[in-house]
């Protein structure tokens, strides 16, 4: 479960002054569902997800992630979250196994339990054959598999994906998409951001359209279509963004 309440993040830039990257955003993601944050580049998606993952601290407002407050218990929040984005790279000089074990240890796993969990994940994602290769020697697809294993090592109830398919080839992107679906099937709370309409249409139970840091609308695809009397998500998106601008 994720509950954001008036989540606000203001950056101060010497040239541009105050930037409200996320502006009083409130929404709720349920377990076993996928919530999609749809927005153009610079809309505030990444900042919003970073706030939820406690990588950044909100200027105002708060959120509860898996029952923990992001302001008061950020470490507990991070222990309940699997965070994956195209920006979350792997340590090139560590092997796949060392990488996943490292994050397992940081999540409190140790010894036999850690090894068992890593073996399990590697079997699940076919990492076994390259598990002892250094990450900088892996292909993009292999890296993505290791990254997924990394986010799942502590079996978190909440998954946050920040534009996870950006820059990936079709096959690798499909692995990620099927992985996101799999997370939902296992009852995890999933939030992910994208600027690709088709991806949002395909995957999301609830879609929130974000622009200039503000959540303009949210609802299921059917609800959005009915509310705006339009069928195409792209048309709905453009209409909202133009009205907001």
């Amino acid at each position, binding site marked *: 479960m994720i509950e954001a309440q008036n989540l606000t993040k203001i950056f101060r830039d010497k040239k541009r002054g105050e930037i409200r990257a996320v502006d009083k955003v409130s929404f709720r993601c349920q377990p076993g569902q996928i919530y999609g944050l749809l927005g153009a580049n610079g809309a505030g998606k990444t900042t919003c997800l970073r706030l939820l993952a406690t990588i*950044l601290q909100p200027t105002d407002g708060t959120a509860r992630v898996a029952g923990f407050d992001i302001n008061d218990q950020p470490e507990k929040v991070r222990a309940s*979250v699997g965070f994956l984005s195209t920006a979350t790279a*792997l340590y090139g000089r*560590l092997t796949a196994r060392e990488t996943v074990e490292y994050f397992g240890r940081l999540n409190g796993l140790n010894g036999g339990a850690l090894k068992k969990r890593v073996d399990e994940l590697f079997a699940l994602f076919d990492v076994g054959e390259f598990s002892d290769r250094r990450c900088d020697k892996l292909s993009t697809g292999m890296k993505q598999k290791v990254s997924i294993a990394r986010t799942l090592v502590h079996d978190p109830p909440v998954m946050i994906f920040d534009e996870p398919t950006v820059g990936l080839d079709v096959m690798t992107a499909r692995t990620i998409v099927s992985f996101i679906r799999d997370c939902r099937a296992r009852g995890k709370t999933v939030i992910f951001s994208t600027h690709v309409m088709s991806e949002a249409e395909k995957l999301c139970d609830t879609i929130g359209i974000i622009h200039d840091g503000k959540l303009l609308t949210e609802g299921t695809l059917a609800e959005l279509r009915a509310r705006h009397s339009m069928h195409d998500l792209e048309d709905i998106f453009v209409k909202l963004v133009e009205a907001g601008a």
Partner: protein
Amino acid sequence: MNLRHVGVVYRKELRDQLRDRRTLISMIVVPILLMPVLMFGLTALMVKLLQRAQREAATVMLLGAEHAPTVAERIRAAEGIKVVPPADDYARQIEAKTLRAAVEFPPGFERRLAGDEPPGALRVKIYHYEGEIRSLFAIRSLREILRDYRDQVVEQRLAARRLSRDLLDPFETQEKNVASPEKVGGERLGGLIPYMIIILCLTGAMYPAIDLTAGEKERGTIETILASPVSRGALAMGKFLTVFTASLATALLSLGSLAVTLMFMPAMGELRSAGSGTPLFQIALSAKGLAVVVGMVMPLAVMFSAALLAIALLAKSFKEAQSYISPLMIVVIMPAVVAILPGIELDAKLALVPILNVSLVSKQILTGNYQWNYIGLIFLSSCVYAALALGVAAAVFRRESVLFRS
């Protein structure tokens, strides 16, 4: 702070660093090789250059040689001097280093010597190039020849007056060195060793510090690690300990290498400093001295590691971090170089100047001189500076604007 996390981060970062060629070179290869190369190589080179300068015949011009046929003849016959025909542009030639020196005799020099000239009326001028070693060797030989000739003239004059030569030497002076050879060697080159260790301490920490901060940003792993349960404090501490380990390892390896090098030094008996015949290097290295120097360098390594981490974290990329850190090298080298200057002695004020204080006191320690009050004061002040740097580094790690600079 979760100490278990600190340990996990430290072990991972250390393993990561030990697989980085740049770190390995700056942390292990350079300190091991630098001391022997510096001590054997530089000494050998220095001795060779000096010997060559001494062996090489110095070109000398005689101006007014016809007024001093005897002296001119002696100069011509002297070993290592080659007399060239006189020319008007002798000064330019000396400046151009094609001529080492020129000697100018006043008109009627030898004839007037035999007469009754008032003292100071006759002046032989030697033109030379100040500070140029080969010019110096040339005028040294010329001075010797002129002094011998003067002594000879004096003796003749005394003999003519039936006076004894002994009249001129009512007493003798004798200079005797009472400082032990270790101390003499230490004064000469002892400053160089702590200086090298301090610089290595910095360079050993440099690459890991950049790699663990700016490097992590550049490779995009910073977001990965920040999304894990580890706190910023524990992350900063784990990284700091890694950099500190590298810094200390560099210092210890260089000290170890120095100790081994010095064990082989006696075999270099033939490398004596030019002229004086005393060994160029002779430094007493006791286990105690080494241990105290390591103790003094420890807080310095903490300070360097923390400062480097804080600075490198400000950068977005490895390259940018390098450009921030290069000026720091100069800041560190300056005080360390000052400590090598002759005549700089430790006092209460200098004991508070970071880096310089450690450099100076280490020089003393390596010459076997332990001033415990200064050693204590310097250790404490270094610890204060180290704590300050560590505080700054921890504060920088908590700043979002720094971690996510774009």
